[in-house]
């Protein structure tokens, strides 16, 4: 009987030890995978706008990863309307039929 109790206690100790190592390994793996994911998918530059700042003046700005919501242009009438896409002109360039132009567009 004593031998059986001793065996049970040894078994319990072994289970506890294995469980502990498994938990520690799990935590390590989670951290490792998170690091790999962060490195391989770095996301977006951090852009903090006044609208993202809460509280009164002097309070720390809330830094939020920019999730495709960059406001690229102030309200002054120029620039693209949709920051998510390229915007085409209203009219594609038409052929002038030769000769010179008013101005040159070339590499610079």
């Amino acid at each position: 009987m004593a031998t059986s109790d001793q065996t049970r206690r040894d078994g319990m100790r072994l289970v506890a030890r294995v469980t502990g190592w498994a938990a520690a390994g799990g935590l390590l793996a989670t951290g490792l995978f998170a690091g790999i994911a962060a490195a391989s998918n770095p996301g977006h530059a951090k852009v903090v706008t006044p609208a993202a700042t809460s509280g009164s003046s002097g309070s720390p700005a809330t830094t939020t990863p920019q999730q495709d919501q960059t406001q690229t242009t102030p309200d002054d009438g120029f620039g693209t309307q949709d920051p998510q896409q390229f915007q085409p002109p209203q009219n594609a360039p038409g052929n002038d039929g030769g000769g010179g132009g008013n101005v040159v567009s070339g590499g610079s």
Partner: protein
Amino acid sequence: MDRLGRASFPALGTDAVVLSAAPDRLGVALDEVRDEVAAIDRACSRFRDDSDLSRANALAGGPVAVDTLLLDAVEVALRAARLTDGLVDPTVGDAVRVLGYDRDFAGVVRNGPPVARVERVPGWHRIELDRARGTLTVPRGASLDLGATAKALAADRAAVRAAAAAGCGVLVSLGGDLSTAGPAPEAGWRVRVTDWQGSTADAEGQTVRITDGGLATSSTTVRRWQRGGADVHHIVDPTTGGPAQVVWRTVSVAAADCVDANVAATAAIVRGDTAPTWLTSIGLPARLVHADGHVVHVNDWAQDAAA
């Protein structure tokens, strides 16, 4: 034929050209363009020690208080990086400098010894921009180069300001990056598209008419120099840290504004063989001149007259 006002002046290491649909309003338009270009230069030049960009680069790794105009310009650059999957990346500053483009191009040594290469650019996603505090943080060990977007942004801003002040249609060209605002002349703006913006208006290329938006041309035939006997040019592929492979001699793109046109033209050069497919997918009209001389038109860009 419309009679236009026309003036030019040196700016941003190249030439600025201003056209006004009303010749008598040229002076007003010109003043606005000069102001805007000077402001962009003060904020965004990497060749001026006193620019906000130079200060932010010098203090890389920590937040630096900068002018709102530089924050605007960096946001435009970040958007460009997102739209091109990082092929137009403002953190190529060191890569360009290491290749030898370390000062205004007029002063770049044209023939020098072999150079090292930045293996991998730091990456645009590491830039931090805080509108609330008015600060920009350049990643430690990096420097920003806004060359692919700031000149085009200046053209867009200048054209809008000039047209509003002059009360007529205006075209602004900064080194061949064109932006228009206000009503176009009856016949449209006539633009000679060619390899080098310093060419005469009858240089080999195509003359097109545009009525709105912006038009930009990127070329691997200009801003070239040699290091260790090898040709180097100014358009860097962020994935290699070296000059983009020369598949296309010149790419011209039209868009709703000059920034989009210039970003797409630059990305197309870097993309190489896949550029026509990509330009088609994003819906921007374009004209690409292959290194062997053949021309490809995309998205309703008019065929060359001789084609």
